[in-house]
């Protein structure tokens, strides 16, 4: 697969010397403790999350599923330092995100997190290439931008503006943008939502490779139950609460998933 080869090159490029073994005791990367999130809309209160506690392990592939409005994006936002909790606490490794100052939050987002947004959120006035550069310019050890685009098969469209790309193409640029920063934690909000079967699978493969070869932690939201099969663990949400959390000891390779 060409994307695997590309990732190999990316790995060399980063000169990473990381050994990945699955037997080691699992290190906790993220911890949510009794998190509540309430949105105040005039008179109405929307309880988006209610007493959510969750641990995410370093190097795991976690999938979140649940019906629309169940609070998936809200969790991702809290974990990524994009929003503040109403009550409860969130830790990243041994640092409490919920106690971060604005500047610390910015640094956390810059150095640690990579985001793929549900609605892509590309900057309209920048080309695909430049949209990726927007994030690499901030990063201390970024991937090569072209390389990142090649991973998602978008390097031949690199000079096009978002308005000239289809939804799926925009989504792939968004993925390249998140990856290129080379983040420890990759947060993907329905990254395959707008993609066809084949492309969706390729994107999944990239994410799985990132986990397996670089030891990145991936949290992925999906509506598609089939995709949950590639996860190490699956979290199910309903009405702002975790209703199910189960291990998947034998994750399927993305190529074998059918939907």
């Amino acid at each position: 697969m060409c994307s695997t080869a590309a990732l190999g090159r990316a790995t060399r490029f980063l000169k990473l010397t990381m050994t990945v073994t699955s037997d080691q005791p699992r290190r906790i990367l993220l911890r949510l403790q009794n998190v509540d999130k309430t949105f105040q809309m005039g008179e109405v209160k929307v309880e988006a999350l209610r007493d959510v506690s969750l641990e995410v392990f370093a190097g795991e592939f976690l999938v979140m599923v649940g019906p629309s409005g169940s609070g998936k994006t809200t969790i991702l936002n809290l974990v990524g330092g994009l929003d503040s909790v109403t009550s409860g606490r969130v830790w990243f490794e041994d640092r409490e995100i919920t106690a971060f100052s604005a500047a610390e939050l910015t640094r956390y987002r810059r150095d640690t997190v990579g985001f793929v947004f549900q609605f892509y959120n590309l900057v309209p006035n920048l080309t695909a290439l430049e949209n990726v550069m927007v994030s690499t310019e901030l990063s201390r050890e970024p991937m090569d931008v072209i390389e990142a685009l090649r991973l998602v098969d978008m390097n031949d469209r690199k000079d096009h503006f978002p308005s000239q790309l289809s939804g799926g193409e925009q989504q792939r640029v968004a993925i390249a943008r998140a990856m290129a920063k080379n983040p420890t934690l990759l947060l993907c909000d329905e990254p395959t939502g707008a993609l066809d079967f084949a492309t969706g699978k390729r994107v999944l493969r990239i994410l799985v490779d990132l986990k397996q070869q670089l030891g990145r932690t991936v949290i992925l939201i999906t509506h598609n139950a089939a995709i949950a099969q590639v996860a190490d663990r699956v979290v199910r949400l309903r009405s702002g609460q975790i209703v199910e959390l189960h291990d998947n000891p034998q994750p399927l390779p993305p190529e074998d998933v059918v939907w």
Partner: protein
Amino acid sequence: MKVLDRKLLREARGHLGMLLAVGGIIVVGVTCLVTMVSAYINLADAKQLYYSQCRMADFSVELRKAPLAELKPLEEMPEVAKLRPRIQHAVTVDLPGMIEPIIGQVYSLPDRRRPVINDIVIREGSYFTARRDNEVIVNEKFAEAHRLRPGQWIRMLLNNQQQELFIVGTAISSEFVYLIGPGAIVPDDRRFGVFYMKRTYAEEVFDFEGSANQVLGRLSAAAGGDPREVLRRAEEMLAPYGVFTTTPLEDQLSNKFLTQEIQGLETFAVVTPCIFLAVAALVLNVLLARLAQQQRIVVGTLKALGYGDLQIFWHFLKFGLIVGVAGGLLGCGLGWWLARLLTDLYSRFYQFPELPSRPYWGVFAIGMLVSTGCAALGSFRGSRAVLRLHPAEAMRPSPPRRGGAILIERVGWLWRSLGSGWRMVLRNATRSRLRTAACVFAAAMGACVLINAFMMQLSIDELIDFQFHRIMRSDVDLTFNDERGRDALDEAVRLPGVDRAEPTLNVACTFINGWRRKKGAVTGLIRDAVLTVPRDAAGRRLRIPARGLVMSRQLADALGVGRGSLVGFEPVKGQKRLRYVPVVEISDSYLGTAVYADIKYLSRLVYEEYAVSGVQLAVQRDPASRGALYRALKNLPAVQTVAARADMIENLETVLETQSIFILLLVLFAGIVFFGSILNASLVSLAERQREVATLRVLGYGPWRVGGLLFRESMITTILGTLLGMPLGYLLMLATAEAYASDLFRMPIVAAPELWILTMVTAIIFGLITHLFVQRSINKMDWLDALKIQE
């Protein structure tokens, strides 16, 4: 280049129209600032340099005739550093080819050059030589106007004798930076000259051996810059020699005009740019608020990617700074150019050895600072709201606009009578408060500037009309060397081409009311005079009373007297007894502070017998009779000055014409304010409502109908703002007139209907022109694309 800068440039290109609109206003503000401050420094510096170069007198005393030895006690006062007695005399000049009489003033100077108070600067030729006694130095402008060069001879009537004088040079002096003849308010290079001659020669022709009729002095440090005490003592000490007037530098004619001009510049250098820059900041605020709002999601995304608030703010700030820096640079350049133009113009009325216009880097720096500061303020206020959001919040589409009914909707019958178009327009205007407020403010400021421009023009017309058609109605005014009897009038009536002659008697005096004293003069007129008609503010003719005075409002106010009060009157000639006379009427005028009385009454008061010091003539206007009259006048030795009303009006008009340039500039600047703010608001409104517009287009609205909606919106704010700005402009004009008002000159305040109408019409025309540009972008708008945009 950073990627975000590329984004910036692309967006700047996309918003070019709006940026130019805002930039234009900034340019105007900075231009005003740089122009006025530079011109101010040019003038103030030149004045200071010139005054010290010529050792400008701090005070002067005019008297009949005092022996030089008698000045010793005055000179020995500790407050006095130095005195210079000199001889001054009015002359008439006879130039070949000039039919109209030319008057001038002669001053004595040391025979050999040495530094003196009120020295001259030689412009051409040389100082006096030892070769002749009858050498003369002519003031430069007069020499230029008549093509007089050193080496030529000139004929003058000195002390009733025709004399031939040899021109050795031309010169200027700091006491005549603004050189005007008696009774004039604007310079007349052709008809009034200043002539310097050797002291010994002046002593001889005027019979002034060892004496002087004017004393100039410089103060010592002990006086603390205040000449009043010295002048009071001088008046006492020199009383036996007939003190006419004592004048501190502050009241010296040329200095007064010059200082007032400089002070005016100083005030306007602050006020005007403030108006424009405030508008610019507000308009930029609107533009950036829109830009930031539009980029909410981008801002959220950038934050999510790890950009700090400061980095993103800096990004938006750069947007404002592009405009600020470009506008500032352009404004500095334009301002410098205009400052040169303005300074050049000043040098036509104000004579300096040199009036250079320099680039002042400090002023440019202030200009840049102010323009970038105002741009930064606008950007900051505009982007603040969006920058404050949490990234997660920013990335969600913005909450819908405040809904609910607007105020007018509550007035049911009114609302129901409005079509859907008007409803849309009114809702939009009320809901986007900041933008509407910015537009109203800009229009108000624009109207303020327009009112000032138009009123300036109307004032000039009013001044000329009131002063030269309604108050002073004579064609030619003569004054005599000395007071004469009735025969002078008979003589004048017999002059060729004279239709009517009326006698006048001018008596210099001091008015006294309690502790208040004012120097002035009373003009005696016959009771049924038609050639000088005192009037009140409403323009009604005032009868000259048989007893008492008709006093100008300015003087009455200064003295604290009104109709029916008694005022002390102490003439400087004749019987110098202090008498108390009633003030019978208060008159109004724009030039001078005239006081009128019945000539018989005044004569009795001062001389006991009928006295005439001048004659006013109504004459036939054709050139032939005019020529005959002037020829006859040249041969009348007793005539000291001749003033023709037509010449005065013509002079005034040429000077005031230069004002037209400024009036035009002001209108142009106001236009830029209107254009900039309306264009910006309309384009922002259009961008904000792309979907609405697209929907209207789908419903079958044509581009002009859509444009009509925007036009109505901008017209509401324009008209509202203009209405608010008009009284504001009026008040500003009142303040200006107040600031510029002096004993010599007052600005008429004209609030005629045409002023308001003209302002409103001009504002609407600016609105219309701007809308054409807005319409163009509506026509070009790709509304199908707009439908697809997800916001």
